[in-house]
């Protein structure tokens, strides 16, 4: 551990960085190529002629593929989903961390148990439930069912249990009820956990693929990942257009990640060590 890191170490770091970032840059460059240049052998890396054709096609040319609409659908679904997760999980997590009540252990045990049940079990029955609720092909199909996952409740409970009790005790002595205590004392102190859970929920929802491709049908209702996979269905794939679309899906989450990477990484790390 105390050894100096020699040139070999830095060469390794450089090679690894190229492996992880290089493919993303190649794809970004492809979005600025003509369709024929995207299929040349050997491939070019930089576009010989920079072209915005792919973005023009992506945004304006194809009425059957309303990509901007998909982008907004994805934004709306992920935002509402993250908000819903934060509300229900910080309420339930607080009750499980701080309150005593009958069946607490049974309720908590049932929630934890589902952490071990694979998600594909719920695909068919939830599809039927959404049908009964009239939520198929609706944004609610993306927003609501996923918020019932056990991870968020468990995550918030663990955080609340680590908070010092003195703050809540003094709020109680000042006459604050449990809801006020939760809202004005506990939540402001839980900001790091809320940011982490909110961002992880947002990312998971934005990136979700298997669920939207089966519960959404109308072209104007699709999310970006579901829509992009349909763009690929064409006989000859217009790769610059598909790559431009992939970058449209990638750049918002990469930008979000740049700002909150500490929260994302620490949230993931804690899922292994604490949970």
């Amino acid at each position, binding site marked *: 551990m105390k050894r100096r890191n020699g040139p070999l170490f830095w060469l*390794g770091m450089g090679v690894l960085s190229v492996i*992880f970032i290089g*493919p*993303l840059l*190649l*794809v970004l460059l492809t979005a600025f190529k003509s369709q024929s240049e995207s*299929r040349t052998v*050997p491939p070019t890396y930089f576009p010989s002629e920079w072209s915005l054709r792919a973005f023009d096609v992506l945004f304006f040319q194809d009425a059957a593929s309303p990509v901007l609409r998909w982008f907004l659908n994805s934004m709306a679904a992920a935002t509402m989903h993250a908000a819903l997760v934060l*509300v229900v*999980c910080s*309420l*339930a997590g607080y*009750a499980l*961390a701080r309150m*005593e*009540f009958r069946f*607490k252990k049974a309720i*908590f045990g049932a929630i*934890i148990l*589902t952490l*071990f*049940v694979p*998600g*594909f*079990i*719920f695909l*068919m*029955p*939830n599809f*039927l439930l959404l049908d009964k609720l009239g939520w198929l092909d609706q944004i609610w199909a993306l927003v*609501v069912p996923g918020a*019932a*996952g056990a991870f968020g409740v468990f995550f918030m409970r663990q955080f609340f*249990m680590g908070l010092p009790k003195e703050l809540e005790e003094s709020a*109680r002595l000042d*006459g604050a*009820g449990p809801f006020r205590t939760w809202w004005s004392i506990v939540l402001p102190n839980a900001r790091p956990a809320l940011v982490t859970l909110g961002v992880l929920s947002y990312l998971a929802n934005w*990136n979700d*693929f298997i669920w939207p491709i*089966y519960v959404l049908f109308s072209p104007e209702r699709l999310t970006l*990942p579901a829509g*992009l*996979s349909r763009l*690929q269905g064409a006989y000859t794939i217009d790769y610059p257009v*598909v*790559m431009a679309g*992939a970058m449209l899906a*990638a750049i918002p*989450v990469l930008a979000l*990640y*740049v700002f909150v*990477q500490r929260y*994302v*990484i620490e949230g*993931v*790390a804690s*899922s*292994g*060590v604490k*949970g």
Partner: protein
Amino acid sequence: MAVTTTQPTRPPSGATPAPGGRRSRGATSGIHGSRWTPYLFLSPFLLLFITFVAVPGLLGIWISLHDWDFLLPNKPFVGGQNYADLFDSGSPQFEPFWNGMKATGIFVVISVPFLVVLPLLLAILLNRRFPGRTFFRAVFFAPFVLGVAVVGLMWRYLLDPSFGMVNGVLSALGLPGDTAWTTEQPWAWISLAAVTVWWTIGFNAVIYLAGLADIPAEHYEAAEIDGATAWQKLRYITIPGLRPVLVFVVVTTVLASANMFGQSYLITKGGPGDSTRTAIMEITDLGLSQYRMGQASAMSYVLAVFLALVSLVNVWALREKKS
């Protein structure tokens, strides 16, 4: 996960209720809410949980006991027939189901060793002290924040056998540049495993890093004084120190690989032939495209039981052995 979840939950549930709980119910109960307060806090989540987790978990079993065609009004009860069909080589479900199970099994076997070992090496590298450590950690983790749709579409293009840049770079380096990465075996499996490593290496690496941080530096210092080699330090300090984390990583990685769907849906489209058509692809295609939900539900429960058994075997095989 079983190993780690239980530990932090135990002390509070054992220790706090007596002093904290009783006081709040006694002296200040009027101010501090009624006995229904906890249920009010829980109710929004429980409503969702019951509707979209508890009920569907049982409804799925009910569906699997019927010839449940979503598009037909009649859904006749067939008992265990859907399950029996999966084990009867004469039934039409037998071949596609076990082809999917085989594909899932192959992917687990070829991807998990790399998904467990390479992130560990990366974590050991990142655990050294050097300037820019946080930056490189963020770089290597970055692909994980992308969705499988982005990852699948971009690698489908980069791995294209004729004009893809992977072959382009290889031939520029003087290596064979005509490999059929997505259309021939074993290259299709190698591609899917490699893309999955590229995509998710940061996830396991970050979990390992958190585990490495808990190994006391004095252990390494003592080993260095004793003249231990790098391999000996890995074998006798790092790996034993990481054991609980390692169990978590192996179990969750096996489950994640067994859930593989998007990569082969987008990159190989289940091909060549049906060779990369995984069990999840078979289940979703049968249940959510063809709407034959009874058979698809039966498949999903059989797969779930398989995965539960595999997880138990993993936990058992990786348990701490008393010597």
